[in-house]
């Protein structure tokens, strides 16, 4: 079952690679002239064209591109002078830490909120849920982030300056996982841990506010549907306890559509990540891509797009496997 699902991901990955190849080759103007720089003459442009393989037919270029990808070669960034793959790998943990903390935060809030709203329709918590859902989908993440900075940094003065992962008074913890919270905990450096957490709260809160809405909405809707279904009525008629019905039967079934929604939420989160990283000067791959975009560093941008797509495919794969593990009807054989 799991192997079958992994096999299904292969054509998607191939499609992703084709599209990202087309994106790299659709650069405005002549990429060779672009990479040669403004001072280049015709001969050096031709030389670069040959060096980049741009004089070969498109199909052959595609296979060269795929071959490079196989060896993890995404080209060289013009602005940092480093291989793009290395840059991305160095910055990925920052983005992942932010995204994961935000998603955990939003699940911890949204799922109970949705469940409570569904079990007490018409109560204040139901209305709160509705307000959160409607406001949440209308809020531009970059704007929420700026408002949070204004309130918690400028007005209240409780949040640190929105300048990256760690205040300069702390040394970054020894790199093991690249997640500051985990690394600092491993090193037993709780002061740095607290410093990293302080920096993380606002950006993660911004992202969480953004993802709260779809998760809460889906939880509420699927919980309502589960509670009105026949098997719940049967369970009630059989005299099972309220708690058992709610969590043992209804919630377990209601979780399935929520997990499916998480896939879509991931897509939004990875996009919103870019904006949040820019607002909070978070040194992740999103702000790397934004910096690259500003200076037209195309290899870096396309590497970023490809990396995000592969990450998203992998996440969807994991979600599907979790789904199969939770859903009793899909047997893992």
């Amino acid at each position: 079952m799991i192997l079958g699902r992994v096999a299904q991901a292969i054509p998607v990955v191939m499609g992703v690679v084709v599209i990202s190849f087309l994106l790299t080759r659709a650069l405005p103007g002549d990429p060779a002239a672009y990479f040669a720089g403004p001072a280049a003459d015709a001969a050096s442009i031709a030389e670069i064209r040959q060096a980049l393989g741009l004089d070969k037919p498109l199909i052959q270029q595609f296979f060269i591109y795929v071959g490079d990808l196989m060896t993890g070669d995404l080209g060289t960034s013009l602005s940092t002078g480093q291989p793009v793959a290395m840059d991305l790998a160095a910055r990925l943990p920052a983005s992942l830490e932010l995204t994961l903390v935000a998603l955990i935060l939003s699940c911890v809030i949204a799922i109970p909120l949705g469940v409570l709203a569904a079990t007490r329709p018409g109560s204040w918590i139901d209305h709160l849920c509705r307000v959160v859902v409607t406001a949440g989908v209308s809020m531009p993440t970059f704007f929420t982030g700026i408002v949070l900075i204004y309130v918690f940094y400028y007005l209240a003065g409780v949040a640190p300056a929105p300048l990256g992962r760690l205040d300069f008074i702390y040394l970054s913890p020894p790199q093991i996982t690249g997640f500051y919270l985990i690394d600092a905990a491993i090193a037993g450096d709780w002061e740095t841990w607290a410093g990293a957490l302080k920096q993380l709260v606002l950006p993660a809160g911004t992202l969480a506010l953004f993802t709260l809405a779809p998760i809460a909405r889906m939880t509420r809707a699927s919980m309502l549907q589960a509670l009105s279904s026949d098997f719940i009525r049967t369970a009630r008629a059989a005299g099972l306890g309220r708690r058992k019905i709610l969590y043992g039967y209804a919630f377990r079934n209601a979780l399935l559509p929520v997990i499916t929604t998480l896939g879509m939420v991931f897509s939004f989160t990875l996009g919103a990540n870019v904006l949040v990283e820019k607002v909070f000067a978070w040194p992740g791959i999103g702000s790397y891509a934004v910096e690259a975009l500003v200076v037209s560093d195309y290899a870096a941008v396309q590497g970023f797009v490809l990396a995000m797509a592969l990450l998203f495919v992998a996440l969807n794969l994991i979600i599907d496997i979790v789904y199969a593990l939770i859903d009793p009807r899909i047997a893992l054989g």
Partner: protein
Amino acid sequence: MTDSPAPERHPGDTIWGHVAHVLRDNPVTLLAFGMVAFLVGCALFGPSLVPHDPLATNAARALEPPSWDHWFGTDNLGRDVFSRVIVATRLDLTISVAAVALSFVLGSLLGAVSGYWGGWLDAVLNRFLDTIMAFPLFVLAMGVVAALGNTVENIIYATAIINIPFYARLVRAEVNIRRHAGFAQAAKLAGNSDLRVLAFHIFPNALPPMMVQVSLNLGWAILNAAGLSFIGLGVRPPTPEWGIMVAEGANFIVSGEWWMAVFPGLWLMLAVFTFNLLGDGLRDIVDPRKRT
């Protein structure tokens, strides 16, 4: 309308009667319609009504907080934030409407063809849509703009591309379940060509859910376009646009000049909120069961 007496008619029988009934029942939808009218009004007449020139700088009155003179304050170059916010409505709405219209047309074509004829065409289209959906959509839009070039038109194309799957899938599903329906076969039997049956008999059935999708999508397209310009793509300063204005204001938020970022941000939120409300309201009119 015919003159023949129709004794059993109720106000709710006609489409307009139904709409009026739903609107009476749900004043929020009415409010949403009103807000859309207001935004469209801003887009049409805003540039000629605003009190100040949105591009006129005035160094003597830079970074002033909101006052009677400048309702939303002035920015770091002394430009009137209120005028800029209102004038920006036209550009932001144009981008999102154009993008949604493009994806509506392309998505309808692709979805209708693959839903009606099926076969390998359908399989290829599905693979293609799966591939688009395999990208985080905002990231794909960034990549498309980076590849095509950093212009407003390309923002529109990028936003359209990432929206196509939603329309294509919706139309494909609606067409697919009706292609062998009685009315379609009757139309076919009466001598209509496949194309005609598809375009005039089957496709119109997909329009109501499509309208809901359009409305929800408009809000999302505005957010998307504003997000792209927030990171410096597409619209270039000094053109007033909500995303750029928030980005410019972000530099001043840490020193307490909140009005530069907050007002364009609020306006953006208002626009997105309006279209989301409208979408929810339209869904209630089209399909009351889907209410959540």
